[in-house]
């Protein structure tokens, strides 16, 4: 089982290091990366300051494993990594990192989009949007 959940924000150093690790794999010709960043949305005049992510980790890991297996069947990929934050992630910080690598570029775009959607739809993750005044609302995916 690959580790997906990271406590706290996903740093740009972590992303850089993930990219660097792939430079020994010389069959790769194309990478595609999706990053979800916490947005300072305004709701009724109040601004989001952070999102606090929680998840049902046992079920989430089962679902993420299924998604990985399906992705390797559906797309001609060499590598795939999914990372999601847990805990409080401030606006501007990265909370979601999907990284797909293939021989040629053709396959990577659709694979990334598919993975992002599957993780959102099938993984029991919850986000509490915390406003600057410390009130909160529960995030709803559109």
């Amino acid at each position, binding site marked *: 089982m690959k580790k997906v959940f990271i406590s706290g924000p996903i740093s740009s150093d972590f992303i850089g290091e993930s990219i660097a690790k792939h430079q020994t794999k010389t069959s790769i010709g194309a990478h595609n990366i999706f990053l979800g960043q916490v947005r300072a949305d305004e709701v009724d005049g109040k601004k989001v300051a952070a999102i606090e992510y929680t998840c049902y980790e046992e*079920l989430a890991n089962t679902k993420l494993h299924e998604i990985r297996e399906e992705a390797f069947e559906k797309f001609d990929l060499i590598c795939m990594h999914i990372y*999601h934050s847990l805990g409080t992630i401030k606006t501007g910080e990265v909370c979601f990192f999907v990284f797909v690598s293939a021989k040629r570029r053709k396959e990577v775009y659709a694979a990334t989009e598919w993975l*992002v959607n599957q993780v959102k739809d*099938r*993984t*029991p*993750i*919850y986000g509490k949007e915390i406003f600057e005044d410390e009130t909160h609302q529960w995030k709803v995916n559109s």
Partner: protein
Amino acid sequence: MKVTLKYFGQLVDVMGNHEETQEIDVKNSNELLEQMKQNNPISHIPFQLAINDVLIDQEESKKLNDGDVIALLPPYAGG
């Protein structure tokens, strides 16, 4: 029988905690769902059940056993 109920997302706010042990008097997941939708302040929140870390299909009704861990899962909001 005694089961553990785990709450996620908005249900944590509504129920006031993450987890509780509760004596229940139902035989299967459908009966439990029915009872919860009537008796609890959560009737307006859509949610799915997972029993012992396995998601339960809305159409199937699963037999419940003493000691089961039952998770109440509102719509997901990852990403």
